[in-house]
């Protein structure tokens, strides 16, 4: 298996971000195809494709779509999660930047299938360029009649699409926190089953709400154009289709690579030009939240939901980070911990207090003041967060640290024993404590 471009096929065509070029490359054919079908038939097509959510959790897309009420006059909302914040991931940013119409088209199809008249794309605040591109695309789509009232002459299909930008919060990538943020609240998660209703039953403003990732929506036009079976034929049995991996780190050609699910991990590294600056030390295959994979465990791992799980890590959002043997894992873990401490929303106790604690202990270890019991203390703190926090951010903060210690315990012990890095010449950034507290008024 090799690179297989479906979504990214035309990403370098000049002007593909404009509607004319996009249409001339088969754009909006998916929407037309969808409108030629019954709404349920569209959902069935997505079901046949086996498409799973590309945001990280890999939940079958059609089940969400099918969960929205199919009758009644209640307002439905369609949300697109473009709050890409997972360190190491940059696929949504590029999709919106280069192929915004593909996302708009996918959302229009989803709106048709789920009877949604209102949609929001929640774009991460930092992605100004992408939001500007998306704005142009939405305006063009309105003018061509792909959005707005009576889309393509169908009096029973109206869909308004708006942009909502975030303002700097990783937590808002969690779907219920995103809904809070959309409703103008602090970006904190909301109750989910079994405690509260599913978003598709009662989401934003108490209305049924469908929320999908940018890449998921971008897959939809292709599925409708070529059929679900065509899509399902790619990838593996349980993880069909293609997936964009954002490859970065110590590789020759970092960038987004679209590959069939089930491609061996090592092949992706080769695609990106191989490891540079030294031998491979470790890979984080799915964004900072997933457990780190040491080089010796990389062989034989296939990049699909099941393959990653079998290797003790996760496919996540496809943020594929490659590290060579000059990398200090303890410093890497410390920076990861800083990230989660900074991005914890502060709602629940384990995440709020635990992430800061982990970060402080790692600060101390990399300042040369670690104690041997600190390593087990870190594991214990991870256990105390994992599974007990309000939303998955707590889990995501504990997994990488735990995997870092499990796989590279000797490096932690080296730091504790010698007060210095096992990598010769490596000096951790002493001054840095991450972006630090959010600035605000001090009374």
């Amino acid at each position, binding site marked *: 298996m090799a690179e297989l471009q479906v979504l990214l096929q035309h990403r370098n065509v000049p002007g593909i971000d404009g509607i004319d070029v996009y249409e001339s490359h088969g754009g909006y054919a998916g929407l037309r195809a969808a409108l030629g079908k019954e709404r349920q038939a569209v959902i069935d097509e997505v079901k046949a494709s086996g498409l799973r959510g590309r945001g990280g959790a890999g939940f079958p897309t059609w089940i969400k779509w099918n969960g929205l009420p199919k009758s009644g006059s209640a307002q439905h909302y369609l949300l697109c999660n473009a709050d890409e914040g997972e360190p190491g991931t940059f696929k949504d*940013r590029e999709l919106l930047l280069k192929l915004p119409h593909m996302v708009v088209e996918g959302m229009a199809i989803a709106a048709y299938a789920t009877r949604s*008249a209102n949609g929001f794309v929640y774009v991460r605040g930092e992605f100004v360029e992408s939001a500007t591109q998306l*704005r142009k695309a939405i305006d063009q789509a309105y003018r061509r009649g792909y959005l707005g009232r009576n889309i393509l002459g169908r009096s029973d299909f109206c869909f308004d699409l708006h942009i909502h930008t975030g*303002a700097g919060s990783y937590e808002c990538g969690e779907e219920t926190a995103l809904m809070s943020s959309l409703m103008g609240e602090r970006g904190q998660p909301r109750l989910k089953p079994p405690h509260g209703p599913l978003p598709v039953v009662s989401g934003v403003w108490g209305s049924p709400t469908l929320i999908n990732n940018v890449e998921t929506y971008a897959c939809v036009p292709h599925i409708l154009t070529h059929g679900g079976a065509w899509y399902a034929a790619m990838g593996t049995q349980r993880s069909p289709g293609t997936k964009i991996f954002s490859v970065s780190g110590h590789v020759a050609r*970092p960038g987004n690579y679209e590959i069939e699910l089930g491609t061996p991990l090592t092949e992706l590294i080769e695609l990106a030009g191989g490891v540079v600056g030294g031998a491979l030390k470790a890979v984080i295959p799915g964004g900072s939240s997933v457990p780190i994979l040491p080089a010796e465990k990389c062989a034989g791992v296939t990049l699909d939901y099941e393959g990653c799980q079998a290797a003790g890590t996760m496919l996540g959002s496809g943020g594929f980070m490659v590290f060579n043997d000059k990398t200090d894992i303890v410093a890497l873990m410390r920076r990861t911990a800083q990230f989660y401490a900074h991005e914890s929303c502060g709602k629940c106790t384990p995440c709020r207090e635990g992430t800061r604690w982990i970060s402080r202990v790692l600060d101390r270890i990399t300042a040369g003041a670690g104690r041997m019991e600190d390593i087990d203390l870190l594991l214990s703190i991870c256990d105390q967060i994992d599974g007990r926090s309000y939303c998955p951010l707590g889990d995501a903060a504990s997994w990488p640290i735990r995997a870092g210690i499990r796989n590279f315990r000797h490096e932690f012990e080296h730091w504790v024993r010698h007060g210095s890095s096992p990598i010769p010449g490596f000096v951790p950034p002493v001054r840095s404590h991450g972006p630090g507290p959010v600035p605000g008024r001090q009374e």
Partner: protein
Amino acid sequence: MVAASAGRFSEAGQAQLAEIVSHYPDPGGAILPALWLAQREYGGWLPADAIAEVAARLGRPASEIQGVATFYTMYNTQQRGRRHIEVCTCLTCGCLGAYEVIDRLEQILGIHLGQTTADGEFTLTEAECLNYCEAATVVQVGERYFGGVNAENAADLVARLRGSEGCTPESLSNAIVEAIVPGRNAGATHG
């Protein structure tokens, strides 16, 4: 709903706010975009007056608006330098020389991380992953991303920023507002 407070929103800003509010079934939804708008109208940051004005215009308690404004990192509740240089030091960038970039920038600007130059021109901070890892090290200044920054070309970046248009908190806020508000030509079919 909108109290006639002694606000600083321009007429254009008020019209944009009205448009934004119309996107949401409840004016509360417009809090985030309204804060972006306020950050533009108040010159790139959110003094207490700006928060009070957003609260009055959306009919929400000011404490709630302040709670929202202080939650998100991109709202400046304190005035920063005209150019806010945010260097990504997260995983990839951190391994690919972000800290050398910071060292160099500190040297060039004569300030430490988290500080603002005496002339109020530059503020230097770390940033969490800006999700442009393919171009590590990535630096964000206002609405612009700069990829492939390293210790060698950091001086060029600073020089370029000194003369450039935009790249301020104000232009960042404006760009976001422009992205949120539908284009004039598209307005006709908007519901």
